[in-house]
């Protein structure tokens, strides 16, 4: 059992958990993930470690409630326990002093890109962060990013905050205005990552994405997380999760991510109204 030390909503449906997991806190590096199982009936859900504190023995994860399982995670509160937390899994991000490094986080991807942005800064890069969100209230970690990065830009799809447009709009502006970019890490929904990859391809800018396919064990045992990279099959959990964006077959990945769509609907319907009410109440309370 893994105790939740604190849990608070950063935005509607996006919750930050600090969990007691001393061993993982000690070992984990930027870019690695954990697998969380909420209860004995739960799925094994891969979640990137957003931060850690080895003195306190805690790790931070940030979860967006989309399907049943993530919504259920978000119904947990401080003082509750997750049944299983295992990690750190996957390869750490490849960090070096590239020169100018841009970390792009779409939606909850901002949280996932945060530890790597920190590591890139520590490695001596000039770091630029682009945070993208649908709308103002979904912008997360802006302050944390500002504390770390040399430049931070926010874009919203509806223009309610920061610059109007997508993360790629901003990225293109930067490139067009002559900013010399040596490295890009893009994390977010698949269409966003693909758009970034397509944008940077002609410029030959080294671009890395962090993939989050459906997983079961997270240790290379099942192959459920496979993706096509450079025309070869990889197991994202052990070969990744970060890959060269220009080599990833996003199309297949997007299709594979639909495998359990119908089940997700059923699961959500079964997710009791009771939990929903509690969840909504919690959101209200915090806002």
């Amino acid at each position, binding site marked *: 059992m893994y105790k939740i030390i604190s849990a608070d909503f950063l935005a509607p449906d996006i919750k930050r958990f600090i969990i007691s997991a001393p061993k993982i806190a000690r070992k984990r590096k930027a870019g690695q993930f954990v697998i969380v199982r909420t209860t004995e009936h739960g799925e094994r859900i891969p979640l990137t470690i957003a931060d850690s504190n080895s003195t306190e023995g805690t790790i931070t994860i940030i979860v967006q409630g989309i399907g049943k399982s993530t919504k*259920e995670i978000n119904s947990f509160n401080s003082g509750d326990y997750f049944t299983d937390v295992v990690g750190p899994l996957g390869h750490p991000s490849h960090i070096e002093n590239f020169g100018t490094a841009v970390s792009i986080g779409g939606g909850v991807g901002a949280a996932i890109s945060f530890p790597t942005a920190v590591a890139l800064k520590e490695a001596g890069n000039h770091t630029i962060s682009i945070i993208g969100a649908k709308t103002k209230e979904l912008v997360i970690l802006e302050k944390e990013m500002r504390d770390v990065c040399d430049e931070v830009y926010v874009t919203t799809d509806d223009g309610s905050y920061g610059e109007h447009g997508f993360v790629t709009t901003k990225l293109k502006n930067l490139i067009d205005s002559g900013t010399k970019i040596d490295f890009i890490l893009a994390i977010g929904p698949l269409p966003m990552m693909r758009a970034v990859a397509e944008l940077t391809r002609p410029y030959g800018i080294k671009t890395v994405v962090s993939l989050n396919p459906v997983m079961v064990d997270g*240790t290379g045992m*099942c192959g459920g997380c496979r993706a096509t990279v450079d025309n070869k099959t990889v197991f994202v959990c052990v070969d990744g999760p970060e890959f060269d964006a220009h080599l990833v077959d996003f199309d297949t990945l997007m299709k594979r991510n639909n495998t359990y769509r119908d089940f997700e609907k059923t699961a959500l319907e079964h997710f009791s109204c009771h939990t929903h009410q509690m969840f909504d109440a919690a959101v209200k309370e915090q806002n």
Partner: protein
Amino acid sequence: MPELTKKERMKIPRQVMPEQNPEERRSNFKEVNLGFTEELAVMEANRCLQCPKPVCVEGCPVGVQIRDFIKLVSEGDFLGAAAKIKEDNVLPAVCGRVCPQEEQCEVKCVTGVKGEPVAIGRLERFVADYERTHTGIRTATVGAPTGKKVAIVGSGPAGLSCAGDLVQRGHSVTVFEALHEIGGVLIYGIPEFRLPKEIVKAEVEALKNLGVEFKTNNVIGFSDTVDELMGEGYDAIFIGVGAGLPYFMNIPGENYNGVYSANEFLTRVNLMKAYRFPEFDTPVFDCKGKNVAVFGGGNTAMDAVRTSKRLGAKNAFIVYRRSEVEMPARVEEVHHAKEEGIEFIMLTNPLEFIGDEQGWLRGAKLQKMELGEPDASGRRRPVPIQGSEYIMDLDMAVIAIGNGSNPMIQKTTPDITHNKRGNIVVDENTMKTSKKGVFAGGDIVTGGATVILAMGAGRKAAGAIDEYLKDPSVW
């Protein structure tokens, strides 16, 4: 009962184990075999000739004293029989179910020369079940504490048998498991209808009672490396992580939705209990009314295809590139599968998978084969018949062509030597690896094999570890 003569014993027919009828069982996950009754067990035990030199024991990878436990069964001393088996085998309820006795002990049995061999496996199973249901699994005796600590990596059959032997010798044993449940392939791989999980749990409980400590959610290689375990004060380490890297066929279309490795399909159903979705959160492909093909001919392929049938598949096929005689699956499993309505398509190999626009599997292009000259495995090599290609409509496919070794430990511990195929290299007699204090056994050494071979390796290693702990200067 008066002593039976040899002749009388030989006249008793091999007793048939009751099983759930095929019609009923193909829609449930309850165990297929129901086990002997006490009467059937005694009757079967009476068939044993009590040979002065029991050759059956030679066939047993862990050396169970078969003749002696069967004698106790024939005398009605079932608990005594259980204790006798436990001297050599820590998981009898598991082995009685999944060991290929027909290739090991039973194939050697002298009554099998003229008639049918004594049903050793069924008796073992009966005895273990009797003990569990009548007294609970009884705790064997544990030796005086030696003060030595052993870490066991992997809680499958190799790890569990190694743990059992070492704890009995007074060592303190900690087992590290990557998943959230103990048992490795016994939990994630072998289905409920062949090995009820309750039985594995009971056997694990018994080990806990002996003092074995289990740590789940520990992926050695990631959570801790082997060197870090050494640093934590373990005097010896046994690696029994199994062969956990599923092979795919590397043919076009293998990443369509609906194409699974057997590991994934079985793990979802067995470990994650997807067959009870939505009560359990993990889904698996909805087989109801669908066409399912499992590619491969081993026990795992049988497990997968029979699972798909239980999940409601309309047509469930085994597609295998050789012929039925070459299939590595146990005869009993093949027989059960056929009874349940599984269709066998032999001498056929897939060339590619066919999918739709949305990425869903729709079929496979298959090619007929014929048998040519024997290959390296001694089995006749399948040779494609040109022009025999055809399309089979499919909604789900499971690839069950075996597993390679998961490279996690080898990658993070470079001084443990492994071969080209990624298997850890050990001394055959002591299971010692190239790294001092580290032993290995089971599928990580041999590549995909059987539960009992892994257990045998675990035992062998336990003996060598015990020796080593007495005098660590000798390596």
